[in-house]
């Protein structure tokens, strides 16, 4: 088996990707030993594409995202390759990375409070990004900061611009991060749970801001979220991670219509359906815990929790490959993919 097949690298490249991740692995050194967090992840992001990333809490989504921009702490060992328009970023000097971040790759972090500076007003923080990367004057940057704050739906932006982070609500802080991230019109935007703290009406507005950014500037967006409603709304393609690995990748409608990997199927059925759970029925869980990655390198990492697991699943890791040869865009790493619903028209082709 070639490396490309094993890691599920796309065999045909239709468009030159803006961001190309190959065999990315990350391990941490902690007091209680080495923790493997990401295991040979490969990923291509095409220009102007919105890719959603989903997966169980702790499966390595944020670590993957952080390693793209070289943001992991020193305790992390990163191997593999991340190329931004052909330029290798893994192992690159911090000074180069700093220039890339903010201008070419922007981040919306999962926990706004820890990434905003508590002693600077939010206006100063947004303006700083603009002054450094766009060489704006102080006054122009401040005016633009106010515009950006109203763009993300913060009322009284002209007054709020002088607030410190602790004076804002959780959702406002999250939107300040979004304003900062879109400030310079980045080529790639990594949005890690961008709407977790937002109610649905505000969320709809933020998703629109992201879509506009893509439509206007062709920004490529990687959206990490556990909200399948957000994925359904905004993503073109979806990457599903489990225990540090990519286990399925597909165009959004295909993934929802016929998930192949057993974990994906479990994830979709755990999604609460409005009207069903009115206080009586238990919510569907996937029983068991995510395994410790290093404990079972040569097996399907989902085997302990999978209803369809057999000997083969415990002895060899399934490759990430197309389940139906005719559908090369839909790949999954599963020895016994879920049966496809009969009604699917492609069935006859494959």
């Amino acid at each position, binding site marked *: 088996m070639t490396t490309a097949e094993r890691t599920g690298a796309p065999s045909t490249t239709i468009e030159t990707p803006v961001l190309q991740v190959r065999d990315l692995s990350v391990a941490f050194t*902690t*007091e*209680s030993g080495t923790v493997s967090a990401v295991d040979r992840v490969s990923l291509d992001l095409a220009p102007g594409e919105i890719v959603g990333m*989903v997966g*169980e*809490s*702790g499966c390595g989504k*944020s*670590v993957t995202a952080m390693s793209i921009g070289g943001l992991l702490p020193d305790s992390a060992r990163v191997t593999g390759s991340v190329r931004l328009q052909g330029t290798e970023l893994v192992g690159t000097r911090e000074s180069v990375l700093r220039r890339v971040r903010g201008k070419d790759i922007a981040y919306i972090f*999962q*926990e*706004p*409070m*820890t990434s905003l500076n508590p002693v600077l007003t939010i206006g100063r923080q947004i303006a700083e990004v603009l002054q450094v990367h766009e060489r704006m004057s102080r006054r122009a940057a401040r005016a633009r900061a106010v515009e950006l704050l109203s763009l993300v739906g*913060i*009322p*009284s932006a002209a*007054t709020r611009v002088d607030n410190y982070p602790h*004076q804002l*609500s*959780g*959702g*406002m802080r999250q*939107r300040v991060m979004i304003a900062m991230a879109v400030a310079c019109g980045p080529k790639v935007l990594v949005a890690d*749970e961008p709407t*977790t*703290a937002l*109610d*649905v*009406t*505000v*969320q709809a*507005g933020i998703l629109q801001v992201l879509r506009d950014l893509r439509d206007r500037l062709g920004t490529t967006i990687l959206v990490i979220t*556990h*909200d*399948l*409603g*957000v*994925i*359904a*709304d905004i993503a073109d393609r979806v990457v599903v991670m489990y225990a540090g690995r990519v286990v399925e990748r597909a165009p*959004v*409608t295909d993934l*929802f219509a016929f998930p192949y990997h057993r974990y994906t199927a*479990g*994830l*979709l059925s*755990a999604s*609460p359906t*409005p*009207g069903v*759970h*009115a*206080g009586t029925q*238990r*919510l*569907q*869980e*996937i029983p068991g*815990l995510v395994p410790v990655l290093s404990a079972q390198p040569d097996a399907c990492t989902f085997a302990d929790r999978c209803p369809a697991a057999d000997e083969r699943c415990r002895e060899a890791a399934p490759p990430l490959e197309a389940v139906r040869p005719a559908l090369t865009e839909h790949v999954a790493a599963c020895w016994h993919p879920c049966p496809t619903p009969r009604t699917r028209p492609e069935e006859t082709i494959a």
Partner: protein
Amino acid sequence: MTSQEYALELSDLVMHFGAVRAVDGVSLAIPRGRVTALVGESGSGKSTVGRCVVRLVEPTAGTVRIAGADVTHLSRRQLRRHRSDVSIVFQDPAGSLDPRMLVGDIVAEPLRLSGRRISRRDRDARVATELGRVGLRAEVARRYPHELSGGQRQRVSIARALISEPMLLIADEPTSALDVSVQASVLNLLADLQRDIGFACLFITHDLSAVEYLADDIAVMYLGQLVEKGSREQIFARPGHPYTQALLSAAPVADPERQRQRQQVLLGDDLPTALDPPSGCRFRTRCPLAFDRCATEVPAQVEYGDGMAACHLVQPDGTRPDVRAADTNEVVS
């Protein structure tokens, strides 16, 4: 009901931060052993209500009663006596976990504060049980908070809140960082414990499916005030207030085709501010049904079904507006 049957009672709670009217007259009572969900737009004052209850901020006016006892003006030290049976899960897990403490010590902290003596071995066992209940491996106890993922940190803060088996739990967006499967297990856990220990819960969230699953009652907040209260059944089946109706119609569904074609009630985008709330009805700048009276007259809280709603178009006989019919301005009953 006598006041001791309420785990929490807020009367006319007001919290102003300088010119920001974060909470502006909220009254709410949660009976023992029941779950009230507090929902509402970002910045409407939900977290501030929670922070007033545990006295992280001192309310500007109004009273807070916990199990019948007025705690509004207790000192922090006096409050600690009550605090041992009140737990809070903060909205921002990272900011509420001490970065220098090991996860095991963080989770065990309420046991230490309660002053009860407990052997090291029992303590570790309790911590492991509590971590297991929120789906974390016992070995996580030996890590630092920054060595965890966002959702893992959030579960650590839930474990810490539950270890003391509280009488009242303030849970501020407790599952916002969790994927659906882990979220389901945490919500199942809360529902089970709620049945077993019988704690009351103020469940602050914007996740309407979680609300539907866990809450007995729902309170809807808009710009510092409650605009609607009622049982879960009623709010989902027959929401009275236009804001509640818009909120329910905006919840995304996990189906790409349906989601992209859905009819959402579009709210006006003239966003009002807690710095200078609109006159009359605070929702009027965005309400598709607003009419002249809304600008001049503050809508009264009228009895509506088993709860209340504050809108000129809601009547005690059950008449309610329908925002989906906004262009025709029809009123359905």
